[in-house]
């Protein structure tokens, strides 16, 4: 589940792994394939804002029709066009990823910085809070958020972002602590540089590179997590349904209308592989020596 992917981010921030043996050609293959897969989904998502083959609430397509020249992916129970819903799904997947990652980044960096710069007591308290937050499964957190705010895409994004922020916070804290302990920073501190300036000049520039890959992986993780939430009925309902929700709705008709139970899943997998490969590629580009801060 999602948690896996989220925690992978923190396991592998440096990845010295491949540089020494893997030829650079592979790197660009990763970037290329990932970029193309992800790019296609992104373009579809943007297209869905401009034009859709059908109105999402148009119910004139007939019940559970198989794919046809008119309805490329068939229709659902209410006669709505599934291709239209798949396009909207792409938009929602992007929204989920971007939203969750943004929440995780902002909140995570903030908490991480506070933990790194504050006194030992606050640091310890925050750190054990982060330990619990990381131990606490995304899915359960999401259920609590849903119970509090009601089932919607926003609730899911908020919950996934919150869950991801704990990992980011922990990473930020580690990097920031190291930076702050370095001689030039201590020197700069004693010469009277303000805290905010210190963060802007020395800490953040060193923190961001370590976060790019984990955040990219969290993007994929967020999309999977949202799908899982939708599966247990905690996602956003159609006609603006996410792929996960579409899968859940189609599951009961898998023997009658198999396309609806397969297409959203394939798109999900394509998106996640795309972003994962992109993250691998990015890692190599952003960090060619593999030795940032290590």
């Amino acid at each position, binding site marked *: 589940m999602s948690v896996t992917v989220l925690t992978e981010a923190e396991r592998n921030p440096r990845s010295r792994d491949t540089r020494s043996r893997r030829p650079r050609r592979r790197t660009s293959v990763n970037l290329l394939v990932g970029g193309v897969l992800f790019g296609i989904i992104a373009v579809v998502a943007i297209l869905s804002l401009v034009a859709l083959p059908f109105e999402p609430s148009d119910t004139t397509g007939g*019940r559970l029709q198989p794919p046809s020249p008119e309805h490329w992916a068939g229709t659902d*129970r209410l006669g709505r066009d599934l291709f239209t819903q798949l396009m909207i799904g792409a938009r929602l997947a992007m929204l989920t990823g971007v939203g969750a990652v943004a929440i995780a980044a902002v909140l995570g960096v903030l908490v991480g910085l506070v933990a790194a710069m504050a006194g030992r007591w606050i640091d310890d308290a925050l750190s054990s809070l982060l330990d619990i937050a990381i131990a606490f499964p995304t899915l359960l957190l999401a259920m609590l958020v849903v119970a509090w705010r009601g089932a919607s895409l926003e609730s899911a994004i908020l919950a996934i972002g919150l869950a991801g922020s704990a990992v980011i916070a922990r990473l930020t804290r580690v990097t920031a602590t190291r930076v702050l302990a370095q001689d030039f920073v201590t020197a700069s501190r004693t010469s009277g540089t303000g805290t905010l300036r210190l963060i802007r000049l020395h800490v953040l520039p060193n923190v961001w590179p370590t976060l790019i890959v984990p955040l990219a992986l969290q993007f994929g993780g967020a999309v999977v997590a949202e799908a899982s939430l939708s599966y247990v009925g905690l996602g956003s*309902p*159609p006609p603006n349904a996410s792929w996960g929700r579409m899968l859940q709705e189609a599951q009961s*008709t898998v*023997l*009658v209308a198999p396309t609806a139970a397969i297409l959203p899943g394939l798109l999900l997998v394509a998106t996640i592989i795309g972003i994962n490969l992109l993250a691998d590629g990015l890692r190599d580009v952003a960090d060619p020596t593999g030795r940032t801060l290590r």
Partner: protein
Amino acid sequence: MISRHRRSRLAATLAATTASLLVLAGCASGSGSSDAGPDANAEIIVGSQNEPTNLDQIFGGSSGVTEVFTGNVYEGLFRITDDAEVEPLLAKETEVSDDGLTYTFTLEDATFHSGDPLTAEAVKYSLERFIGDDSIAARKSQLSVIDTVTAVDDTTVEVQLSAKSISFTYNLGYVWIVNPEAGDLTAAADGTGPYALGDYRKGDSITLDVNEDYWGDAPANGGVVYQYYADPTALNNALITGAVDLVTSQSNPDSLSEFESGDYEIIEGTSTTKELLAFNDRVAPFDDVNVRKAVYSAIDREQLLDAIWDGRGQLIGSMVPPSEPWYLDLADNNPYDPELAADLLAEAGYADGFEFTIDTPESGVHSTVAEFLQTELAKIGVTVDINIITDDQWYEKVYTDHDFEATLQGHVNDRDINFYGDSDFYWGYDDADVQTWLADAEQADSVEQQTELITRVNQKISDDAASVWLYLNPQLRIARDGITGVPENGLNSLFYVYGIQEA
């Protein structure tokens, strides 16, 4: 006992074998029992999605508890048959005083599963428990006409009513007679029925063992297991792979085609579950009859029923399903007619439409219905916002606080038209005539008089479009070939299993 255990293991193995083996095993067991007819020792496995919250009807056990226990483990003084008739059960004889206020019941010679005899004290305890302070039983308010219960002697009970109640015996059909010695019944049971509670595995199953000392006729099977599935697809799969013998309620018409072969029987009965778009009749614009009628006429319910139930089920025009004595065919009383709807809106002063929110419980089909209504009402210029809430939030926000404009709900109870006589009910329909008629009906001297009065209510609430009654759910049960005696109708979730047998 031993043979039952072997059977259940056999069933488990069967579920796991390949299709061909299934056929072979089926043949083998078929030929073994064909001489003796139906197999009275067969354990029937019932698949259901309706797991009770707990096992006590007076403490939130909900309709799931009725499905398992009423008539099977516990019995009432009366029984309500699958055709909605009342017949005596534990009350062998009933005498009613001329003023209709005193009922004297003579009890059958029955024993509880624990071995204790059924006594008048137990009946007194059970009735008082049902209407007691702790009880949140569904029919508590209807039975609150009970003033005193007296155990005259061991087998005679006298009940004094504070007012005449023509549906008293009908309502008693839902009240379990329990053993006072049994204590807390939320996870245990002690009744007089043909089955005793075997195993209770929350989240999984409830096992009913045959009561060998049953006072009436022995059941046609050797025990029943209710196997629960939270997910409708998992339930379907269980039936396909033979893990269950039948399902009590099929909520997804699209998977029916999988069962249309000769290996299964699809049993379509009538339910009492009505899908309602309930307005808050207290607040504008829904305090205006014309607005309510406009909304009603703007909805193509035929298409809705087709989308949700693939043409099964039935269109209704009021709160009353055909199985109740005061039924009238009112399905076209507020016909689907967008032009009429637009005219009615204009008449009410909303020619340009208006906007309102439907509080939609997340469970079941409500959100699909809400989306459909959104599309339909947009055509007459009415904007619908859908607010998805949990079932619990529904009870808090809509049911208790009346903080809503309109909501969707499936009303499962039979004979629940009387809610329109209570102006404090969540939808707040307030009509003096209806209230008088319903009160008089309950005090009626004869069923004819009662029927006549409630029929009037039926017509009136439909004319007023007090709510939008969208459709009546079908009751779809599916049984594996060879399973017979499955009750057809879903009267308030009653499901008597003692007649089910395996050939």
